[in-house]
């Protein structure tokens, strides 16, 4: 929002430094690895070297005799004394424990845990554990896993399929029968993840005197304390998760529930504090945080004028060896299944299946980025099929500004938007005609160059209605969040929140919102975190929800405080609250500003002068507010129509990519993102998350992949193989803001925690394809690594000076002669 646009807010939307920053820049963050408990022991893990095997014998004597070793735990004891982790879909036989028992189902799965005085000593001892395995058949690709007679990852489940359903929303067959054109293609999203720089870690301490298990963890997970307690067979009030641990990045994946149950069990069993901090190999291979691994069979029916009549999407996703919540990542995209387009008929056929790979975990966007990539590849392919400009095609199919609120075929209603305006702003910002000339000039100098455009939705407000959509036994229809506000005897304001944070700036969010409503300086407001025994209900910062849900809860609580102060003044002035005016914390009589009770006086009355409080008002000055997700609360219709998320932000990405035709190496030359997430509470924070999301998208599009060898070994278990883009690969970016307020939220805000990531891979993929178009080459598989681009070039360009043909059956080019 430009400075010229006047907002009704004093603090919301203004530039504010984040409250969290000073502790981080001075080295005073408090991350889980910084927590040192007296007498704390350390865990090292023994992992399976096989993708699928029977455990024949485990010999632990030598490890137990090693210096500094306290204990060795194996699956036999652990599985007998804990319960399986929760499975999201209806697949109760797909049990999952932190330590394998009898069989291992992926290379890297934990088989034994060693507890010793230091991590180094624990690792020394872990090497002394001998395990005999009998290898079993394994399966790591979709075709084989879904074929009859495939090796079963969980034989008790009876199939490798965890979830399958075909949804038909609207007259799909009719649309396909009547359309003038149809295309079909497959788009493939490679297995990557958001891979935070901090690995997962957890420290736990059991107090036998109180019967409380204290947990400090690098966590971002809904229902984490509850799931930990259940698996440990403890009542919920015996587990105390401390949310005041700084989380070193998460973007969805910091859900170390198996780690936590393991360490919680050990802490209780041994009566001593225990800590496990993953090393990077454990994190990438056994940390159970790899992302969607999915292909889309896309069919689109459209007319020659570009009108899209219908779309069929078959999405097949490999969740690896265990379920958890990962199959739900096929369900969330139902809430924006037609993207920003007015497509009246959609068929969606999701299949979630298992292989002998590392389990999948929630990743930024919860399945939306892969879906947006497939939809946006489809739009570009339709444009190419018709010879139509892809920007014009998008404009023609966009839902128009005056059509909101707009209900899409799968049942969600988009709250608001102006997609044409945001696209136009972004095109103007990048100076599109100049961009086209730059591309064409690069082509003339022998480079491959392409422009990519994507226009995508970012559902926000983090509801979990995909649970009830995908599991008929689940009737969870609330995904609330909360805030407690206290005004103490000194008049200082404290907001209490109920989750840990991983860089999203929740302390800044809440202090700004409280300051806005209470008209107090946000810098004077402290924000602290409850622990899980003192917390109000929260569902953690997932699904771009906190600006909406935590912001809304904080505003609700602040309004109660304000109402209380006005009620106190009204009682003391013997007038009606309507006669009073609240300004900067003081309450005065309208038209008679000298008749005033100041903030300090009102606080004094609330805390100490019961005789001056209105009857029925509780003493002290505090308020809690628990907020249900707006529009949430319904069960799906029989056809599977449901409102999943409440708010829909929009983003468009325009990018110029150049490719070296000799090596296939891509470089991003220009990047503009147009973004509309409604009213921004803190623009720097929104922009920061968007830049970061774009960088994640660049990684997913061009570099990052969890590759597996044919025998099921992870081939990218270090940062030398799993390639995270650096400041050399991520270009300078420009963000153009637009503001269409949401009618559903407190200040008109929408969520934006997943911004950037939801549209960047699609735009980059479209740019690479635009660059390859003059050659007649196409790629629809991510990541589009140098090698994959080089192969695509060489598949269509005959051998000539400057290019080389790939020899058959090798993954590598020969050195140039």
């Amino acid at each position, binding site marked *: 929002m430009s400075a010229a646009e006047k907002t009704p807010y004093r603090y919301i939307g203004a530039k504010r*430094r*984040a409250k*969290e*920053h*000073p*502790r*981080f*820049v*001075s*080295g*005073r*963050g408090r*991350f889980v*690895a*910084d927590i*040192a408990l007296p007498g704390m022991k350390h865990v090292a893990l023994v992992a399976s070297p096989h993708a699928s095997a029977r455990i024949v014998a485990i010999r632990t004597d030598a490890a137990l005799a090693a*210096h500094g070793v306290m204990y060795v735990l194996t699956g036999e004891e652990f599985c007998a004394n804990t319960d399986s982790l929760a499975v999201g879909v209806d697949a109760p036989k797909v049990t999952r424990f932190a330590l394998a028992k009898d069989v291992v189902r992926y290379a890297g799965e934990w088989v034994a845990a060693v507890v010793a005085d230091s991590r*180094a000593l624990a690792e020394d001892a872990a090497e002394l554990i001998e395990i005999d395995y009998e290898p079993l058949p394994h399966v790591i690709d979709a075709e084989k896993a879904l074929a009859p007679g495939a090796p079963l990852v969980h034989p008790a489940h009876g199939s490798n399929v965890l979830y399958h359903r075909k949804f038909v929303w609207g007259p799909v067959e009719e649309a396909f029968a009547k359309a003038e054109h149809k295309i079909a293609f497959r788009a493939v999203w490679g297995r990557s993840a*958001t*891979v*935070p*720089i*901090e*690995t997962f870690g957890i420290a736990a301490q059991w107090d036998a005197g109180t019967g409380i298990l204290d947990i400090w963890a690098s966590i971002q997970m809904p229902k984490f304390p509850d799931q930990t307690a259940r698996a440990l067979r403890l009542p919920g009030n015996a587990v105390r998760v401390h949310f005041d641990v*700084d*989380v*070193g*990045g*998460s*973007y969805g994946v910091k859900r170390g529930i198996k780690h936590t149950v393991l360490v919680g069990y050990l802490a209780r069993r041994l009566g001593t504090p225990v800590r496990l*901090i993953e*090393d*990077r190999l454990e994190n990438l291979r056994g940390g159970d945080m790899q992302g969607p691994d999915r292909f889309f069979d896309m069919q689109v029916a459209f007319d020659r004028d570009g009108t899209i009549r219908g779309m069929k999407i078959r999405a097949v996703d490999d969740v690896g060896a265990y379920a958890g919540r990962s199959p739900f990542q096929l369900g969330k995209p139902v809430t924006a299944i037609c993207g920003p387009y007015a497509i009246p008929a959609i068929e969606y056929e999701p299949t979630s299946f298992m292989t002998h790979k590392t389990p999948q975990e929630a990743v930024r966007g919860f399945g939306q980025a892969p879906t947006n990539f497939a939809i946006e590849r489809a739009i570009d392919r339709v444009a190419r099929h018709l010879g139509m400009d892809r920007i014009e095609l998008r404009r023609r199919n966009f839902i128009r500004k005056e059509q909101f609120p707009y209900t899409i075929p799968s049942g969600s209603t988009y709250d608001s938007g102006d997609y044409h305006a945001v696209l136009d702003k972004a095109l103007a910002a990048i100076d599109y005609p100049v961009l086209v000339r730059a591309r064409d000039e690069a082509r003339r100098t022998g480079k491959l160059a392409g422009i990519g455009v994507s226009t995508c939705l970012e559902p926000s407000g983090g509801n979990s209605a995909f649970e009830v959509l995908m599991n008929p036994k689940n009737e969870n229809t609330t995904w609330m969040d909360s805030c407690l506000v206290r005004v103490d005897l000194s008049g200082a304001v404290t907001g209490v929140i109920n989750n840990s944070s*991983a*860089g*999203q*700036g929740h302390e800044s969010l809440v202090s700004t919102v409280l300051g806005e409503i209470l008209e107090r300086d946000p810098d004077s407001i402290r924000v602290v975190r409850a622990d899980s025994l003192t917390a109000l209900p929260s569902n953690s910062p997932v699904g771009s929800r906190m600006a909406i849900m935590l912001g809304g809860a904080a505003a609700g609580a602040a309004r109660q405080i304000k109402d209380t102060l006005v009620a106190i003044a009204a009682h003391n002035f013997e007038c009606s609250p309507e006669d009073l005016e609240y300004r900067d914390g003081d309450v005065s009589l309208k038209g008679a500003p000298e008749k005033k009770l100041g903030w300090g006086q009102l606080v004094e009355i609330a805390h100490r002068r019961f005789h001056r409080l209105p009857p029925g008002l509780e003493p002290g000055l505090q308020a809690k507010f628990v907020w249900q997700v707006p529009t949430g609360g319904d069960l799906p219709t029989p056809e599977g129509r449901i409102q999943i998320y409440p708010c829909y932000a929009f983003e468009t990405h325009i990018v110029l990519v150049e490719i070296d035709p000799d090596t296939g190496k891509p470089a991003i030359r220009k990047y503009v993102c147009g973004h509309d997430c409604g009213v921004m509470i803190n623009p*720097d*924070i929104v*922009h*920061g*998350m968007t*830049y*970061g*999301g*774009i*960088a*994640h998208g660049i990684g997913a599009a061009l570099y990052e992949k969890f590759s597996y060898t044919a025998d099921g070994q992870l081939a990218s278990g*270090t*940062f*030398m193989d799993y390639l*995270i883009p*650096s*400041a*050399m690969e*991520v270009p*300078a*970016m420009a963000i153009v803001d637009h503001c269409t307020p949401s009618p559903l939220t407190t200040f008109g805000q929408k969520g934006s925690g997943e911004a*950037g990531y939801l549209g960047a891979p699609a735009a980059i993929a479209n740019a690479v394809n635009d660059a390859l178009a003059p050659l007649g080459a196409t790629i629809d598989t991510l990541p589009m690594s140098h090698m994959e681009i080089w192969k695509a070039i060489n598949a269509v360009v005959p051998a000539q000076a400057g290019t080389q043909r790939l020899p058959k059956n090798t993954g590598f080019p020969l050195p140039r002669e």
Partner: protein
Amino acid sequence: MSETLYTMEVEVNGMRRTGAVPARLSLVDWLRDELRLTGTHIGCEHGICGACSVMLDGEPVRACLMYAVQANGHRVTTVEGLARPDGSMSVLQDSFCETHGLQCGYCTPGMLIASQALLDSNPNPTEAQIRDAIGGNLCRCTGYQQIVEAVQLAAARTKSK
């Protein structure tokens, strides 16, 4: 079967610190676990991510790839040593806050070390030089944009003083 310990003396953030450490102890583990200077973080332990960056005699190094004993007789600066003598934030630290050059804060100490080392040797870096200097430090939150802006701001503020 306890390990042989080696005595060492290092100047850390201007203070003389001594230790008796096993040969295999990494510098970052010594700083974090023995000195409790937990501002320096561990990200990959194989020299790629840069989260453990510290300055050794003014040059940025990976504290995960060095043994503690290798620092014997040298000068080490960690993020805790970047503040002004009165404890307030340095120009660079303050610039990171101003441009929102961080989110979760985990890579931040390494970024500050890499950037400060750059500014110490080149007070007027170009954007390309800044990207090159932080090219060995991975960040997953920011897309580097506001970090680059922070270093540019710090350079401009230092120049205008």
